[in-house]
């Protein structure tokens, strides 16, 4: 891709194939994930966006019949290589899911869980500070600071999703993957998440899957268009939306199929 990048990409994927049993869901995808931009994956439902996203933090490992081929690197390290510990990888490459999935525990415990299992905090004071910082960065602190001991599942959908973002942020990831994070939210909650993505940009490399093209245009600087498991086109978001090089991309963004 001939786009001007000042820094080396955060993640690179080269000739990635993903199979579910015998069925190939991702076909020979190569892509760089920029460290200072938001990258959006768009494409019709079932084209493999989630599947590809989940290869980036090896969540596909949990699916019994899924198989990944090809090379995926995080800062030049092969994430499927023997030297990579998958638990550490998932802390470094955090994930926010389509449906908000807070633990049925308190708001505090939700955010503190990651730092706890990785032994980040030396004591209660330090852990408190980490929880607060994560909640502040996720734009949720003001709303929940007086009720940290209430259940995370009692929050509204949008708040739950920001809690999940806080939970991911709390382990200080380098990359945050979001799989249609707003598809279960109302427009106001969606706007808040989009605003949050703007604020988080630069601090974390962000990849967001969305089937909402306006959203991709609003939040991302890079857009990758997938179709039937193939990466059709990848480039600057403005280019993709105003001047696509591929016929299929143009058909999709002008709403001719989807």
């Amino acid at each position: 891709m001939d786009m001007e990048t000042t820094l080396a990409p955060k993640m690179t994927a080269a000739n990635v194939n993903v199979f579910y049993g015998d069925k190939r869901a991702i076909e020979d995808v190569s892509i760089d994930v920029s460290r200072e931009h938001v990258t959006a994956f768009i494409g019709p439902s079932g084209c493999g966006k989630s599947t590809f996203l989940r290869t980036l933090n090896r969540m596909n490992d949990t699916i019994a019949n899924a198989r990944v081929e090809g090379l995926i690197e995080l800062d030049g390290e092969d994430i499927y290589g023997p030297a990579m510990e998958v638990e550490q990888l998932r802390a470094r490459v955090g994930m926010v899911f389509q449906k908000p999935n807070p633990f049925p525990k308190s708001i505090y415990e939700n955010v503190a869980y990651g730092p706890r299992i990785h032994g980040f905090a030396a004591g209660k004071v330090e852990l408190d500070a980490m929880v607060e910082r994560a909640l502040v960065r996720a734009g949720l602190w003001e709303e929940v600071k007086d009720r940290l001991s209430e259940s995370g599942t009692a929050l509204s959908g949008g708040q739950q999703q920001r809690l999940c973002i806080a939970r991911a942020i709390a382990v200080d990831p380098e990359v945050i993957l979001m799989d249609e994070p707003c598809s279960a939210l109302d427009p106001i909650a969606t706007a808040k998440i989009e605003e949050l993505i703007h604020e988080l940009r630069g601090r974390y490399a962000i990849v967001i899957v969305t089937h909402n093209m306006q959203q991709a245009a609003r939040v991302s600087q890079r857009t990758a268009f997938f179709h039937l498991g193939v990466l059709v086109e990848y480039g600057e978001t403005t280019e993709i939306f105003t001047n696509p090089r591929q016929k299929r991309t143009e058909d999709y963004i002008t709403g001719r199929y989807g």
Partner: protein
Amino acid sequence: MSDALRIDPTDWRTDTMRRRIRARYAAERRFRLAGLAAILISVGFLAFLLITMFVNGIGGLDWTFLTGSDATDPDRVGIWGAFKGSLLTMLVTIALAFPIGVLSAVYLEEYAPRNRWTDVIEVSINNLAAVPSIIFGLLGLAVFLNTMHLPRSAPLVGGLTLALMTMPVIVIAGRNAIKSVPPSIRDAALGVGASRIQVVFHHVLPLALPGILTGTIIGMARALGETAPLLMIGMRAFIASPPQGFTDPATALPVQIFLWSDEVSRGFVEKTSAAIIVLLAFMLVMNGLAIYLRNRFETRW
């Protein structure tokens, strides 16, 4: 304009409509009556059992009875010996069946690959839960007494035998409880870098615990009432003093009831009923505990 396209509002007051509504109401009433009758039948039997046992047995429930052991004279018999035998037996059963059952359930649900072998194991466990208890008694006799030469009539052997019987029940209840934990919770924990063991112990098991406990207690209550397998391994001897340990000869509540009900002396009729009251009270406490634990630990989403 065809009939299907008419736009005038439906007339809900025609005779046909009214007849439909009346028929619907009648069906509702019939269903409610049938349901009520079904409940009354089971409640009636339970009430009959409780009342007869209570009337017959309450006179036999005195201090001597509650603290004594078996005797030849019906006036001097007591239930404590059999109660303690049951208690020791249950302790062995739960100490064995609970951890092994839960570990098997976790392994099968969270770790085992889905293949022919796990299918075979699954079918075997389901079948094991349906095997008549007398067969487990024979198994206990063959394995624990004849092969391993453990002491006859001991709560240890009784507990081991009942554990074999209870384990599949716990495995099945455990698997169902684990299965009902939403996958999104596992994803959430894995997503922040939890290992599989951490996912299981921090999230899945705590959420599955109410279901596991309920299943366990139901299995234990069943084991508590089991008589046949204990007869097979010799827990039917005449024992005049309560067991002091897991290897002492002992009997158990249901076996004691069975033995007394066989006595010719009329004084034993009252004692049999009194023993049934004690056994039922023990079971009620266990079931109450199951309900309490379920309500206490249940997660509401």
